[in-house]
């Protein structure tokens, strides 16, 4: 094996350069290293009169800080500090000289090494109408990458900023940005030992409560259209005079709620199929918990897993192409991650190491799973290749203030596959964090003293 790899390396070394048939010398330089682009991001300029809207500064700050956070999370940019800027952006126009006589000069931005320059300005057309004008320039070629004017309501500054960030991602990478996506999560912030379901922007803002069962509500999930969620709540059954974990769906925009499955026993851990027409979940019906499939109304129940007797089969998740289901099962003695065909056949065990591996989530390209695995005394996030389960990587290893390792659990992939949302108790409470898929960059999302459970990243939302 060593000899073969040596031979291979020698051949590869010689293949890096060659003599062409016209005796020219060629060298293959090889794959480039990835480097973040330097971006100059001067403050946005207020373009109308201050007297009309006294809160214009707050609006400007919202716009700017939202875009700034988006740029940092995108992981594509390094933002040049404002102290380094040579030109005072407040004194020059948004467009370049000489076409604009009072415009900015590309040289003063090229000198500090910036690859991109973002010039933005905003005005209040009235007390309630906002207009945001923004240009993105590629400095080495003095070209415009993106130039847009956004019109919105005065209280929609953050959404406007996120829309611009999405547009910038699309213009640069050709892919959609995630800046208008959301999380659905269970939390105890309503107090009274209840857990309710909340929807929030991915950056932790705009938290909206969507359930009021005054009970324990858990394991929410998104329908692929981004408009409906499903969740389980311990609802009261009058005929039983007790509570039963029932499955509900809720249309966020229309405010309509449906009871989908109230079968006796567990109806939880739900997930939608990629076409949005089926739900898979764990149902116990007074037997052992098995995975079932049903339509969105709760009918056409179809059993997918079948034992072995005494085992739990929970937390199912559809692959992005709808052909496979990942789930957690303790049939081997301890909970491990498995993958099977959508009809329940061809069950393949994915994880073999660790004491408790659960809550698998698929990457949007269907090649990887992220799950929470218990290592000794705490949980960490791991990504694993579905094709080659030996290709596994640990993403987290944060410590609590006490010095002990924190629990990082319940991961969920972003729709562009570049980030994972999860909960961590490193501050003492279960807070929401996001991490890049290579594990290099973590950010805290919620900053309070409540607990959050099982967040799920929404699909792209228009």
């Amino acid at each position, binding site marked *: 094996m060593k000899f073969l790899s040596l031979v291979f390396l020698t051949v590869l070394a010689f293949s890096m350069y060659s003599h062409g048939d016209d005796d020219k010398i060629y*060298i*293959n330089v090889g794959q*480039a290293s990835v480097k973040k682009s330097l971006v100059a991001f001067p403050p946005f300029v207020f373009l109308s009169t201050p007297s009309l809207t006294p809160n214009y500064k707050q609006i400007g700050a919202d716009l700017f800080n939202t875009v700034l956070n988006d740029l940092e999370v995108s992981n594509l940019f390094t933002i040049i500090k404002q102290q380094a800027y040579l030109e005072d952006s407040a004194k020059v126009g948004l467009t370049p000289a000489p076409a604009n006589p009072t415009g900015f000069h590309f040289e003063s931005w090229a000198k500090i090494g910036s690859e991109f320059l973002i010039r933005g300005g905003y005005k209040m057309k009235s007390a309630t109408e906002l207009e945001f004008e923004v240009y993105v320039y590629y400095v080495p070629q003095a070209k415009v990458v993106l130039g847009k004017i956004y019109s919105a309501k005065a209280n929609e500054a953050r959404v406007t900023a996120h829309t611009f960030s999405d547009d910038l991602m699309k213009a640069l990478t050709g892919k959609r940005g995630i800046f208008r996506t959301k999380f659905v999560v269970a939390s105890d912030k309503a107090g009274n030992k209840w857990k309710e379901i909340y929807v929030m922007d991915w950056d932790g803002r705009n938290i909206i409560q969507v359930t009021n069962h005054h009970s324990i509500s858990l394991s929410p999930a998104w329908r692929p259209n981004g408009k409906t969620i499903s969740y389980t709540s311990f609802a009261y059954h009058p005929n039983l005079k007790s509570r039963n974990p029932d499955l509900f769906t809720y249309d966020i925009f229309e405010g309509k709620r449906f009871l989908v499955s109230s079968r006796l026993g567990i109806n939880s851990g739900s997930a939608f199929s990629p076409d949005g027409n089926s739900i898979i979940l764990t149902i116990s019906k007074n037997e052992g918990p098995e995975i079932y499939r049903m339509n969105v109304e709760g009918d056409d129940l179809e059993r997918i897993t079948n034992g072995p007797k005494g085992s739990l089969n929970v937390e199912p998740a559809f692959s992005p192409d709808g052909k496979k289901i990942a789930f957690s099962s303790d049939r081997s003695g301890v909970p491990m991650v498995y993958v099977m065909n959508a009809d329940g056949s061809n069950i393949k065990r994915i994880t073999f190491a660790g004491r408790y591996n659960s809550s698998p989530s698929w990457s949007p390209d269907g090649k990887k799973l992220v799950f929470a695995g218990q290592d000794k005394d705490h949980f960490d996030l791991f990504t694993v290749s579905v094709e080659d389960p030996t290709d596994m990587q640990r993403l987290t290893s944060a410590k609590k203030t006490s010095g002990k390792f924190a629990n990082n659990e319940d991961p969920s992939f972003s729709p562009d596959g570049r980030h994972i949302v999860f909960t961590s108790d490193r501050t003492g409470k279960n807070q929401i964090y996001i991490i890049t898929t290579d594990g290099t960059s973590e950010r805290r999302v919620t900053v309070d003293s409540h607990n959050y459970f099982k967040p799920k990243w929404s699909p792209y939302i228009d």
Partner: protein
Amino acid sequence: MIKRLQFLEISSEPDLFKRMVFFSLGLHLALFLFFGLKAVLFPSPSLTLDAAIKVDIVALPDKLQKLPEPQAPQMAKVPALSKTQKTVAIKSTANKVIEKIKKQERAEREKKLLDNLKNEVAQEEAKEQRQAKLAKLLKGNAVSSGSALHGLAKSEFNEYLSSLQAHVHEHWNLPEWLQNDNLKASVTVFIDFRGVVLKRTLVNSSGDSRFDGFALKAVDEASPFPQPPPRFVDIVKADGITLKFP
């Protein structure tokens, strides 16, 4: 002839078939013999096949020097017999002695001939060497040996190229939004004996001017390149080095 034909008609079919087969064989044999005898008795000149030789005419040829004619070997004179040896009794012994002397003389003659030939060959070889030395000035028709590197020189050159590749690769960066398998560009670089880049040109654009910009930036930042070993300076100067990104 008619009788023969009649005979053929009268015969029954299987017999007829047999006779026709023999008839055919006979004709074949006759043909074979005819051409065989022709080849033996009247042979045609055979074809000669020579290997093709690549010839470079690099200068007008010199006038050929005329070689001296080889000297004809001279026979040694046989000494005449004295009168004191003319007795009948000793005629037979005299004849034997005469024969012995003749043999010796013959041997001496042959030896002298051989020596002469050896000298001539040595002279001709010396002449050829002198001519070869002159021929190195590439006058007249000559076969050129080419400019490819061989053996040790070639592996040294490859080592130099791999050090160049490692050096440029260090400076080759791309932002994540340009990481695309389809983008490829080539830059030809001309360096001097110090490794300083004298000139660089984009010979194959990737189609994306920003990607091309990063390729050229990698070349600019990598200058000066590792110094080429002295004997390779001309080789890299001639057509330059073409760097393929990635």
